[in-house]
């Protein structure tokens, strides 16, 4: 599904050169649920942005579903992103002027899906996250947890095969966080591949596979299989 080979990302200013990712290697298989942890500034979000094609990388190779991302232009990347990837952000990133229905409609419009099909998908997704009755509400009329569920519904509406979640529970209390996590687990069971960046080690442990990013490199690789934990170094 996702394969990164020796991917490097350098932020360059006049004075400083920062290596956000160095020779980053990772393979994510179809249907996996991966939690990415690591200290602040370690490169987790940079990895997620590159995985979501929101940022270019300097070196290496990135294949998404067999497509070499490095060879695509902006329009092609936007199309690929729109068709294969769903985003869930820590800050929900709902558009405040649009009601829930319209927020979920945004990626579908860019994909050129017809109105009746959009309606079907939106209603289905709102049903799935338990907010069908709030379709005409504006985001600010909802709680944080509800807003995140709308963001998840928006990510799901495009029927993506790959979900990227950046601290999806970071702004939520523990009850809401648990509900959102259960929703993500359900989505994963339904077949979506999920990569979730989190600081919360307890939450990370609920994911079947954990990776740790330190100083822009994959430092640790942990696989939770029920009660048994297999730990390997550097993902080997």
């Amino acid at each position: 599904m996702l394969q990164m080979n020796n991917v490097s990302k350098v932020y360059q200013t006049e004075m400083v050169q920062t290596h956000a990712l160095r020779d980053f290697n990772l393979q994510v298989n179809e249907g996996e649920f991966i939690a990415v942890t690591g200290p602040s500034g370690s490169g987790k979000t940079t990895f997620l942005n590159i995985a979501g094609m929101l940022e270019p990388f300097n070196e290496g190779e990135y294949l998404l579903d067999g497509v070499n991302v490095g060879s695509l232009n902006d329009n092609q990347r936007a199309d690929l992103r729109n068709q294969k990837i769903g985003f869930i952000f820590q800050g929900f990133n709902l558009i405040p002027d649009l009601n829930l229905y319209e927020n979920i409609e945004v990626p579908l419009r860019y994909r050129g899906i017809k109105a009746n099909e959009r309606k079907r998908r939106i209603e289905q997704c709102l049903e799935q996250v338990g907010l069908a009755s709030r379709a005409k509400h504006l985001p600010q009329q909802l709680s944080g947890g509800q807003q995140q569920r709308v963001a998840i519904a928006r990510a799901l509406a495009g029927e993506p095969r790959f979900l990227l979640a950046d601290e999806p529970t970071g702004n939520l209390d523990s009850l809401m966080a648990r509900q959102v996590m259960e929703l993500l687990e359900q989505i994963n069971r339904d077949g979506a591949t999920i990569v979730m960046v989190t600081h919360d080690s307890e939450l990370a442990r609920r994911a079947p596979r954990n990776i740790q990013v330190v100083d822009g490199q994959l430092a640790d690789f942990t696989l939770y299989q029920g009660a048994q934990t297999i730990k390997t170094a550097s993902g080997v």
Partner: protein
Amino acid sequence: MFIHYLDLSWRSFKRTPLVSFLMVLAIAIGIGITMTSLSVYHMMSADPIPEKSSQLYSVQLQTMDDGSTWWTEDNMPLQLTYQDAENLLNAPTSEKKVAMMRTGFSVYLDSDKIKPFIGSARMTTPDFFSMFDLSFLYGGAWSKEQENSAAPVVVITQEINDKLFAGKNSVGELIYLDDASYQVAGVINHWPLNIKYYDLNNGAFNQVEELFMPFSLIKAKELVSWGNSNGWKHENTPTFADKLQSEQVWIQFWAELNTLEQKQAYQNYLLAYMQEQQKRGRFNRKELEYKLRDVNQWMQYNNVVTEDNKILVGLSFMFLGVCLANILGLLLAKFLRRAPEVGVRRALGASKRQIFLQHLVEVAMLGFIGGMLGIVLAQLGLMGVGQSYDYYENLATMDLTMLLSAPLIAITTCILAGLYPAWLVCKTNPAIYLKSQ
């Protein structure tokens, strides 16, 4: 998607009503001022008779002896002498031609109900009406015979007919001009002429005359010109007959030449005429010279649209530029404030091109609203201009071309102003804003 972009633009308008209103107001003021000056300029420079402006030629003859100079750019007198005008009128050539002069009379009826008033008159030949596309409400032009016999007949305008005869068919009625009575031969329909191109002596934008009468009456009644009479050498002209035979120029002359062959033949005729006149002691010059200028060339030659008008249009466009610079600043602030939302849209699959188009549609909508409001302001401006001078009354209007141009100019200029902010917002890195929102 365009409708969706329009919807987003309208929401954006409502989200920041004050900034949006300021932008619309800036566009409206810029467009209002620009369209006011542009409309006047457009009316001043518009072809007054587009269907045949390239077939009507003003005739100029170089009557001056060698060594004499005139103030025109090509040293040519603007009018003809009476004797040349009469000779050209009587020429055995087939084209339509008119000689004419402006004069005026005290106008009254044999009735105490209408107060006498001063009316301006055009002394001309009967072809005038068909050459310059005038139509008749009642009656028609006087006949060739009446022209030749200096018959006391007159064609009046619809306005004068309304004033003197309450709009009734007045053909055959008598009106008094100075001390003689004249029979009404016809009444012309309202002639809305913005530029009095056929005689630019008394100002290009003056009203057309109210009375039209046979050219032959000039000689018969010894009528003086209400236009310019110019001479280039000392001549003693104590009597009217002396003036008619003098080298003073005071008659306008036009010919209708419908084909190139007709024009060439007329040019040959003019040359032959001057050569023949040379034998009689006139046109004492080495090189004989004449000019045929069509309507638009004639207007340009006479500087109908002055440099001042052009400068005014230029200044108004510069003012529009200043307004747009302000709009550009406001758009920059507004669009960049929206960068986080753009980041989300980009993450959700919008390409840079789609973001760019969305923002261009928004500025186009601002331009359209501003353009519409600008038309209202331009109408107020034109009302003000129209009231400043009488002759601006006809010029200070917006025709359909200008009405359609206003929103088009507003949208185009707004899109130009919005290109940079739209480009800037679409090329921002979405990743920066997704984390920070």
